[in-house]
Structures are given as structure tokens and as C-alpha cells.
């Protein structure tokens, strides 16, 4: 049996046009390359 309130919590507000700019800036663009570089840097240290 579904819990209505729990399911409701899964719904997040959608992005409005005004929020696009903030969303772009807040986007996490880290990828594996960055991770690898960090590892390499640590190894080099």
C-alpha cells in the first residue's frame, strides 16, 4: 500500500525559467578525469 505523503515527498518542484541561470551555475561538472587528476596529484606529492 502506497503512503501518499511519502510518495508526495518524491516530487520536487520543477525548474522555472527564472531558475535556469542558478541551475547552470550549481551544476556539478566533476567527472572521472578530475578524480584521476586528484589521485595523480596525490601520488606525485
Amino acid at each position, binding site marked *: 500500500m502506497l503512503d501518499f505523503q511519502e*510518495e508526495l515527498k*518524491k*516530487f520536487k518542484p520543477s525548474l*522555472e525559467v527564472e531558475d535556469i541561470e542558478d541551475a547552470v551555475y550549481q551544476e556539478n561538472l*566533476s567527472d572521472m*578525469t578530475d578524480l584521476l587528476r586528484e589521485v595523480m596529484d596525490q601520488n606525485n606529492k
Partner: protein
Amino acid sequence: MEYEYKQKIIYQSNYWYNDGLRKANMHDLSGAIVSLRRSLQYNRDNVAARNLLGLVYYGRGEVCEGLVEWIISKNFKAKDNIANYFIASIQSSESELENYNQVVKKFNQCLNYCQQDGEDLAIIQLKKIVVEQPNFLKAHQLLALLYLHTEQYARARQTLRTARKIDTTNEQTLLYMHELTQLRGKKLKDQTQKEETITYTLGNETIIQPVSARIKEAAGRNTILNILLGIIVGAAFVWFLIVPAVVTSKNHTTNRQLVEYSDQIAAKDAEISAQKSALAEYRSTNDESEETVQTAASTSDSYENLMLASSQYDSNQYNNSTIAEALLNVKRAALGAQGQARYDELVQSVFTPLCDELYATAVSQIQVANYASAIDSLNQVVSMIEGYNDGAALLNLGVAYAKNGDTENATTRFNQVVETYPNTDIAAAAKTALGGDSNVGAAAQ
């Protein structure tokens, strides 16, 4: 070595991009998003993956999320990037973007309504949203959730079907559909259970009794009752509707036949009556003919007897008795004038002396009480000359009958005298004889 790792990372990114592309082609948008995000986790510079991700978001109705990805993609690669085209397409129609913005605001408002127990308002709003933005997956999902919550299962099913068309493997959609299936099964089970059992309490115990047995018990009885009822209704229908009509029809036929037969009978009666009339006519004609024949025969006989009597008288060889015998067979009325004249002549010549002789003999016979002989003699006399001696013959004939004990003939003769010779001595004597004293006439001498 770093290069090798970089190559492997790129390969992995491309691998997941391909997987994302494959899933996007199958409308598995949720799966495509996961694969493409993974692709970007390996290599954020994978512009193709980012563009595709933006497109997938756009396909799910999340335009702004798509725009975000395209803008980032454009930052990574400003030229020869399809993201420029996507952004330009959306920005070219300001009204459409504004409409979409309003839709998103309404959706966010619906979330607030739901959190404030305003499900009805949220449903109304969401219905409008899914009409304006048919591929807005989250709106469909929220609407389906609200329908499930308010037990509008049919509408929930329809909404979830639409949502599944947009994104075939979306976990939330599948979860709601599974819940719907379970709810429907449970409802059927409850209904069936309710129909199959009867629950009631008896004291401290709750008794659950299966209904099927009672239904089965009643089924046979109900069937028979229904059959009987059907027969009764059918019989009543036939009796009250069909039989009167049949009887009326038969009566009409019978009446018509009766009328026909009556007409025939009347015609026959008329015919019979006509035939009877004709028969009576024929009979009367026949009677007349017979009478004519008889008259003719009688005339012939009379003339023959007259001629016989005349020839006997003229021959002087016959006594008066013999001639009288022939004359008695003559009917005077059948003779013509000459015949009657000759008859009268012969009567005078034959009957008169003969009657004188016979009368004298009869008187003597009465006096000596030879009444039988007197009767014969006097009968001969009256047959020749009925009124012989002014009724004396008749009177003495009556006396002879009376003396002989033949009261009936005696009375007849006495009455004849009284009627024929009224106010005469003869009549008085006859009356005396009728009174009982037959010593009159010759008997008185």
C-alpha cells in the same frame, strides 16, 4: 599512462552515451537519463551525451532542465554544436516559453496544494496542466498519485497509461501501476469474499458462514419456482388473451354458418311450401278428375241399369222385385232429362206397387212380432220410396228396430221422422217412441 586512463575514461563515457542513446530510442527516458549521467560522470566534455540528456529532459516535459544541459554544452563547445539549435528553437517562440513557465508554476503550486490537503484543487489544476503540456511526465505522475489517494482508480489507470507512453520504465509510474493492480485484486477479493460468506456474531463468537451453499440450495428451488411461475403466466396469457380470441373467431364462423344455414332452410321451406301448393293443386285437380271419372262411370251405370229396368218392364217377363233391383242402382241425378223422365215413369210403375206389397207384409210382421223380417221389408220400402206413406214406413221401421232391441237404429229412424215430418201425427208418434213407448204405428194396431 595518464593517456591510457584518459582513453579508457573516454571509452566508458562513450559506452554509456551509446547505452543512453539506445534507451532514449526505446522511450526508456529514465534509463537514458541514468546512462547519460553516468557518461557525463566519466567525461563532462561529452557534448553529445549532454545534448542528448537535454533532449531527454525536453521529451519528459522538463524544458528548463533541458535548457540547462544545452547551455552547459554550449559553454563546452560554442561552435558546431546542436545545442545552439535547440536553444534557438526554444527562445524563438517567447509565448511558448512563457506558457511553459506558467505550466511549471502551476505544477509547483499543485505540490503546495497537496501538502496542504487540497487534493481536489490540485487535481483540477493538474488536469489543465496535462492538457496544456501533454508530455509533462511529473504532472501525470502526481495526478495519478492523487487519483489513487482519492480512490479514483479508473482515472488513475488512464493517467498512468499516458505516463508510461512518455517514459516506459519510469520507476514511479511502474510502482503506481503495480499498486493499482494490487488494489484492484484486493477489491475483487473483498467483493468475492463478501459474496461468498456471511459474517455475524452470536454471543461472543463471530460466525462466518459460506453463502454458496445457501445460494446453491435456493438455486434449484428458485429455478423450479421460476418455471412454475412462467407456466402460470403463460397459461393465464393464453386463457385471457388467446382463448377468447379463438372462441370469438369460432363464434363468428359458427354464426356465419348459422346464418347461411338459416337462409338455406328458409329457401327450402319456401320451396317446400311451393311444392305443397303445387301438390295440393294437383291433388284437387286429380280429385276433380276422379270425381269427373266417377261421375262419368256413375252416369254410365245409371243408364245401363235404367235401360235394363226399362227392358225388363217392357218385356213383362220380370217381377217388380227384379226390376226394382235394377232401378235401385240408377242415380236419377246422373241421368239426363229423358232418362229422369223414364226413371220416374218406371218408379211409379214398379216401386209403388212393390212398396205397397212390402209395407203390408211388414205391418203384418210387426203385429206378429216378426221384427227382423219387418225390418228387411221396411228397409226395402224406404230404399225405394223413403217417404212412403208420409213417413209411416220410417216410423214402423223405427218401431221394428225398437222392438227388436236395436235402440240405436230405432232412434235414428224416429229422429228422421221428427225432422222430416214436423208437426204431424207421425212426428208425435215418433216422439212418443223416442220417449220410450214404442207401441206406436203398426205396433199400436
